[in-house]
C-alpha cells in the first residue's frame, strides 16, 4: 500500500497565482541586482569592517581609542586635513569656470568640436604626465618663469612649487586646469538637451546674453551643477593624492606645504609601517567624505523625483 505524504508536505497550488506573479514582478529588479549588490557589499563592507577593526588595534592587541588620539593630535594629520579643506575652495571656482566654458562653447557656432576637445583634453591626460610636465614648467628657472621674465614681469616669476607659501595654490591651479574639462562637458551635455524653443522664447521676450543664461539656462542646469559640485568636493577631500604624489615626489613638500590626508594615510601605511594609524586616518577621512556622499545621494534622489514628476 502506498502511503500518502502528510498534508503539510503536500504541494498545494496557491489560491491566487496572480498575487504571486505580482510579488515577483515587484521584487524582480532586486533579485537581478542581488549578485552585484552582494559583490559590492562584500568588497566595500569587508574593507570597512577591517578598517574599523584595525583602527582599534596595535599589532593585533585591542587599544581602544588610542590610535584615534594619536592621529587627531598629530600636527601633520591636522595640516593634511586643513589642506584638503583649503582645496575645497577650488570647487566654486571650478563650477563657475565650467559653466562659463559650457555656455561659451554652446554659443560658439564655428569650431565648437575643436574647442570642446581642447577643453576636455586635460581631463583625459594621465596625472603622471601632468605631474612631469608641470614639474618642469613651473621650476623657478623653468619655461613659465623664463617667459614671464622675458616679458618684463620679473616680480611674477615665483617659485611656484618650491615655495611653501605658493605650492598649495599652484597645485590648486593645476587641479582646476585638469578638472574644468569634466564640468564643462557635463554642463554642456545638459545645455544641449534644453529645448531650443525655451531659449528662443526668452530671446523673443527680449532677454540678452547674460539675462538668458543667468535667468533661463542656469536654473535648468541646477541638478547637473549640484552633482558636479558634490563630485568635485569628494575629489578635493579624498582623491587628490595622485596630484600631490607625482608633483612632489611623494613628499607633500616643500616642508609639509602640500600634504593631504590621503598622502598621510599612504605614508603611514607604506613608508612608516604604521598600518593601524593609516586605518584610523582612513576611517576619519571616510567619515568626512560620507557627508558629501550623503549629499550626493540626496541630490540624485531629488533629481530622479524631478524626472519622474515630469
Amino acid at each position, binding site marked *: 500500500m502506498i502511503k500518502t505524504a502528510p498534508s503539510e508536505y503536500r504541494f498545494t497550488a496557491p489560491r491566487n497565482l496572480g498575487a504571486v506573479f505580482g510579488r515577483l514582478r515587484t521584487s524582480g529588479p532586486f533579485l537581478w541586482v542581488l549578485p552585484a549588490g552582494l559583490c559590492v557589499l562584500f568588497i566595500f563592507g569587508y574593507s570597512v569592517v577591517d578598517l574599523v577593526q584595525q583602527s582599534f588595534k*596595535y*599589532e593585533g592587541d585591542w587599544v581602544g581609542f588610542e590610535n584615534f588620539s*594619536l592621529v587627531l593630535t*598629530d600636527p*601633520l594629520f591636522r595640516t593634511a586635513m586643513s589642506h584638503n579643506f583649503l582645496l575645497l575652495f577650488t570647487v566654486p571656482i571650478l563650477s563657475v569656470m565650467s559653466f562659463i566654458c559650457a555656455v561659451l562653447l554652446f554659443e560658439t557656432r564655428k569650431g565648437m568640436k575643436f574647442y570642446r576637445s581642447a577643453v576636455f583634453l586635460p581631463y583625459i591626460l594621465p596625472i603622471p604626465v601632468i605631474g612631469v610636465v608641470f614639474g618642469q614648467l*613651473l*621650476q*623657478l*628657472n*623653468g619655461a613659465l618663469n623664463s617667459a614671464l621674465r622675458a616679458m618684463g614681469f620679473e616680480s611674477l616669476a615665483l*617659485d*611656484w*612649487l*618650491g*615655495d*611653501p*607659501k605658493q605650492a598649495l595654490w599652484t597645485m590648486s591651479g593645476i587641479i582646476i586646469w585638469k578638472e574644468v574639462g569634466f564640468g564643462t562637458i557635463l554642463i554642456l551635455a545638459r545645455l544641449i538637451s534644453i529645448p531650443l524653443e525655451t531659449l528662443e522664447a526668452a530671446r523673443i521676450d527680449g532677454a540678452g546674453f547674460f539675462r538668458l543664461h543667468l535667468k533661463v539656462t542656469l536654473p535648468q542646469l541646477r541638478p547637473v551643477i549640484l552633482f558636479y559640485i558634490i563630485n568635485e568636493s569628494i575629489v578635493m577631500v579624498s582623491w587628490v593624492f595622485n596630484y600631490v604624489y607625482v608633483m*612632489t*615626489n*611623494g*613628499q607633500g*613638500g*616643500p*616642508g*609639509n606645504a602640500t600634504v593631504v590626508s590621503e598622502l598621510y594615510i*599612504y*605614508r603611514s*601605511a*607604506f*613608508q*612608516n*609601517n*604604521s*598600518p593601524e*594609524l593609516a586605518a584610523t586616518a582612513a576611517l576619519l577621512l571616510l567619515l568626512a567624505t560620507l557627508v558629501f556622499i550623503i549629499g550626493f545621494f540626496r541630490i540624485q534622489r531629488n533629481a530622479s523625483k524631478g524626472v519622474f514628476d515630469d
Partner: protein
Amino acid sequence: MNIRGKAFAVGSAAAVLLTSLSFIGASASVKPSKAITTKPVTLTMWWWGEQEAPGAQAWVDATVKAYQKKRPNVTIKTVLQTTDGLMPGFAAAAAAKSGPDLQYFWGGIYSQQPGWDGQISPVSDHIPADELKHYINATTELSFQGKIWTAPWYVNPSFPVLARTDVLSKYNLKVPKTWTDLLKVCDVLSKEGVPTLAGGVKDGWFGGWLYSIIGGQSVTNKDVVAAVVGKQKFTDAKHADWWTRLQETKDRKCWNSDINSLELYQAQQLWKDGKAAMTVVAGPDAPNFANAVGASKVVVMAMPKWSTGKFAGKMGSTSQTIGITKWSKNKDVAADFLMFSHEKAQLNSWYKLTGSMPADDRFDLNTVKDPVKKALFQSALPGAPYLENFIPAQLDADAVFTNVQLVLAGTKTGKAAAADMQAVMERLRKTDRSLVKNFTAWNK
C-alpha cells in the same frame, strides 16, 4: 685506580670535553652550508642601484646569467625599482607576505627595521660566518643581537663633495677645506651669480645626505641613537648646530636659487655644465661625474669641516645590501646566489662595469689605477658612520627632509628646525611603541 689509569681517565675526559667544546663552538659560529636543491627553482629579486651606480643593471644581468649557468635549475627574475617606489613596494609585498625572494635595502635602519618587523630572514642564518666576515660594513650597520640582517653588496662612500677647480680658479678661488673658507667662497661667487653648491631638495633625499655630511661632524652614531631613544635631545648643541650651519649656507647664498624646485639629479647637471663650483654626489657615481668633466679639474673631498668632532672632515661609509625575505621558499638558494655574487669574478666584474667598490674586503684595491677612485675607496675603509642610517626612516622623512626644504627656502630658522626634529622624535616614540626597545637593543 693507579696513576696511569687516573691520567688516562682525566685525559679521556679532557679529550671528550675539548672535542665537545670545539664542536659546539664550530656549530655556533659557522653554519655548515646545505646542499643546494637540484629541483627547478625560481627566485625574484627586487633591486635598486642603477640610479647611483650606472652599470649595475649590466652587472645584475651578467651575474644572473653566470649563476644560472652554474645552477641550471635556478631561474632568477630581476626587477629594477624606482627610488620613490623601493620602500613602499616592499612594504606592500611584506603586508601580503608575497613578492621578492631577494630584496635590496639601504644600510643601517633601512635593513634593521624590516628585520625587527619580521620581514626578512637574517643572512647570517644562511651564509657561514667565515664568508660574512669579508662583507664590508656588515657588522657596523647590519648586525643585531649577534645576527646580521642583510648582505652588503657595494660600498657607498657617503657622500663625496666634488669641487671644480676650473670654475673656482676663474674667480681666483681655491677649493675650501674649512667651513669658514666655504662661506667666503659663497660670498664671492654669489656676487658673480654663480652657485657655489649645486643641489636639489624637491625629492627630499638630499636633505638626508646633508644631515649626514654636515650633521655627522659633531656627533657619533651612538649619540644619534641616544637622541632617538630619549637619552639626548636633538635640540642639544651637538645635535642642533648643524641646522645653524645649514641656515648659514642659505643666508650666504651658497646654493642655486632653484634648489627647492629641482630634484637632486637635475641640480647636479648644473655642476656638470660648469654653472656651479661644487656639488655632492652618490659615492659610486663620483668617478663618473669626475670623468665627465675631466678628472684633472675635479677634487673629491669630504664636506668642509665646521666642527672638531671625531668624524669631522671624514667621509661616511655605508654598504647597500641585499636581504632574503622571510616568506621566500628558497632561502638557501637565495643565499647561495648572494655568496656567488661575492666570488672574485663577480667582484672584479662589478668594479669593471660600474667603477664603484664591491662590499668585500677580498676585492683587490691594487687593481684600481684611477686616482679618484682609489682615493674614494680608501676613504671609505674605514669611513665615518653614515648618520642617516641610524635614525628612524620616519624621522628622516618627516623632520630632516621637510626641515631642510624649509630652511633652504628661507621660511624656517635652523633653531626652529632643530626644535621640530625633537618634537617629531618625541611623537615617534609614542606612535612606534617598540622603537625605543629596538634602538636600545641595536645600540648595545
